[in-house]
């Protein structure tokens, strides 16, 4: 075993949270070592993987990101590690994330909805869930910083911004143009009283930003932006190294070591040769993904921490949340035409808010803007048509079908829980096991609220056929496993995402979120990361 101690702060994970924190520390003159479980892969290789994949597999992200044996990531039913997550319960917590340098922002859509003030006070306002330990105004400046750091484009018209309240600064870039389908969808839902507004998104709009080019409508944000116009954390790795960061890929951290004062002393990682290494430091940040972080904490139990690291509250791995979603696939008479511009470009957010939240979840509706050829080509060919009739059928099905997605909020529940499976991975480390039930709060919403709205929208679109997904799918927005709170007895981290139990351990990211709201979680994770970074700098400079 080799002991390495070449940085003041050790950051585990090179996704958006780890990268944002690392850069703030480097800018403050603090040395940083980053440990990444997976490989470091070029954008060109990922694009090549996507293009060379069979048409029927292009929706499976594992085709573009085949997992390394030592760093398996879940890949969904058609991927290469479909049994990495051991799932149980009434609903399936089937996630995908990426254990590559750069993390899961490689394949995020870039959607960056903020929480609203009400989203952070569910208990006070509606008597459900948890309140956050601070209010929206506390988070607001960190949202703004995150939006400038990632490069978020969005509307300047306050009526089209989310949440509808005065911004501290305008978005750094204007919104992106709508596709014909998005334009038509916006007109139709307006007649129903809903506002489909431009999504604030991490994509360069009309101009370069952060040394990355402008979006030129490749319509491939998921699984990979081929030109890097969409922010992903991989785009920052070279800059971090230029600032002095050391980044070790293929380093799978499997143990967090405490000392006699129950502070974190070191972490241990395995390399692809299954050799163990020890890395010491003064302060540690675990930002290894909403599932991998609680897994690592539970794996690291010791005599001083018999339930696992940071787990005096027994809340590590509990309260697992996401945005359970239902999709309405509609067939219309008139052409809508998706597949021009980014894959997600707008949404109806106001349906996520209201007094009804005391009874059931809110929902956010979006018109998916993926090019639909790959969804319809096989079905069109299966009809046995040839010649002009075949051409016309593919064109019709591409233009006249659309996916409307209703994404729901979910409440934290301790029984939605990640534990360690007795099944092990290639390195012999336990696989994550997750029990999950979206709960009556979500099911009631689908029954009395979200699906009725979705069906109303479909009817207004002139749908001749509507297919509704039979089960809730996951949105791959992993939240709650290291939940934040003021009370150390029922939460894992404090308002800076610092472990209640270990003052030199930070667990920032989606795991800390005390409520999910309906919008995608990454921009809130980024804001929390910057808030943690400030606290870490202050602590390292001796102010804490």
């Amino acid at each position, binding site marked *: 075993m080799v002991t390495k101690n070449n940085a003041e702060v050790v950051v585990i994970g090179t996704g958006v949270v780890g990268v944002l924190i690392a850069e703030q520390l480097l800018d403050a003159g603090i040395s940083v070592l980053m440990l990444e479980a997976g490989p470091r892969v070029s954008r060109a290789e990922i694009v*090549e993987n996507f293009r060379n*994949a069979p048409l029927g597999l292009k929706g499976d992200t594992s085709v573009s990101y085949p997992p390394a044996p030592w760093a398996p990531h879940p890949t969904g039913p058609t991927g290469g590690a479909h049994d990495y997550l051991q799932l149980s319960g009434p609903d399936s917590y089937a996630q995908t994330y990426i254990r590559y340098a750069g993390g899961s922002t490689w394949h995020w859509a870039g959607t960056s909805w903020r929480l609203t003030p009400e989203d952070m006070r569910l208990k006070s306002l509606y008597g459900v869930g948890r309140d956050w330990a601070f209010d929206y105004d506390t988070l607001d400046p960190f949202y703004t910083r995150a939006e400038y750091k990632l490069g978020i484009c969005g509307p300047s018209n306050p009526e089209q911004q989310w949440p509808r309240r005065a911004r501290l600064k305008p978005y750094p870039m204007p919104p992106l143009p709508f596709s014909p389908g998005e334009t038509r969808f916006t007109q139709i839902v307006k007649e129903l009283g809903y506002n489909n507004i431009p999504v604030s998104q991490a994509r360069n709009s009309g101009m370069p930003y952060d040394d990355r080019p402008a979006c030129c409508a490749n319509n491939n944000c998921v699984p990979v932006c081929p030109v890097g116009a969409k922010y992903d954390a991989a785009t920052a790795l070279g800059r971090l190294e230029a600032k002095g960061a050391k980044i070790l890929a293929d380093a799978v951290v499997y143990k967090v070591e405490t000392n006699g004062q129950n502070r974190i002393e070191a972490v241990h990682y395995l390399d692809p040769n299954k050799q163990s290494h020890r890395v010491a430091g003064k302060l540690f940040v675990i930002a290894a993904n909403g599932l991998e972080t609680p897994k690592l904490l539970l794996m690291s139990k010791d005599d001083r921490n018999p339930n696992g690291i940071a787990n005096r509250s027994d809340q590590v791995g509990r309260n697992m949340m996401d945005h359970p979603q239902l999709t309405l696939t509609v067939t219309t008479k008139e052409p809508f035409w998706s597949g021009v511009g980014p894959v997600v470009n707008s949404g109806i957010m106001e349906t996520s808010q209201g007094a009804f939240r005391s009874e059931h979840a809110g929902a956010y509706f979006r018109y998916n803007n993926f090019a639909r050829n790959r969804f319809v080509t096989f079905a069109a060919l299966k009809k046995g048509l040839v010649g002009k009739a075949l051409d016309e059928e593919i064109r019709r099905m591409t233009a006249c079908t659309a996916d409307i997605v209703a994404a729901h909020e979910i409440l934290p529940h301790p029984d939605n829980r990640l534990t360690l499976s007795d099944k092990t991975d290639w390195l012999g480390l336990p696989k994550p096991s997750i029990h999950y039930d979206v709960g009556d709060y979500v099911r009631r919403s689908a029954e009395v609220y979200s699906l009725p709205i979705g069906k109303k929208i479909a009817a207004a679109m002139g749908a001749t056929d509507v297919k509704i997904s039979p089960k809730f799918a996951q949105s791959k927005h992993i939240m709650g496993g290291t939940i934040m709170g003021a009370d150390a007895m029922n939460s894992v981290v404090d308002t800076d995402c610092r472990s209640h139990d270990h003052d030199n351990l930070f667990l920032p990211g989606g795991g800390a979120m005390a409520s999910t709201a309906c919008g995608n979680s990454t921009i809130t994770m980024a804001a929390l990361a910057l808030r943690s970074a400030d606290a870490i700098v202050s602590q390292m400079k001796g102010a804490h």
Partner: protein
Amino acid sequence: MGGFLQAHFDDENATRRQLSEAKMKLPVSRRRLLIGSAAMAVGYVALSTSPAFPAAPAAAASGEALNAKFMRLSNLLINHRLSPAVGARIAEGAAADHKDMAAMMDQIIAIAEQKQARVVEDFFEDIPAGPAKEFAHWVIFAWYSGVSSPKPDAKVFTFEEALTFQTTSDVVTIPSYGLSGPNLWSQATVPLSQMPRF
């Protein structure tokens, strides 16, 4: 549609599961696989130079003839301009899976010539149900989808040149290929009736 393609659709899920399991057991990237394949090919040539060399010109000529006939067939089955390079890949894939491919091509071409067909609609209904018709459907399938089947282990002949994208090329992006310049993609909707020429 005949049983050949139907079988592909029916057992798609089972094959996906099998492929997933295989990938779990042997996680090898496509790049590494290609590098490995290239190394194996070089090794094969080195080991087999003297017996294989005299036969190579004949094999090449045979391959060219097959490709030419396949393109002739494809141009009868599909009313569009077709890429010979893509056609060569589809022909190679077809030959691997259909030992009686040459005879089926002759049969279909003969029917088309007998009907003096100018477009596929002129003769397709005259192809009798059975292997030749299933093969004709498969050829069309391959050109439009760019793959040999909907299965996860399908052979990939092309992505960006798959004809499905040509039917919507006036509006829809081929994913990962840029459609226009920065923020220049605003456009009014277009009617279904304006089929692009391709």
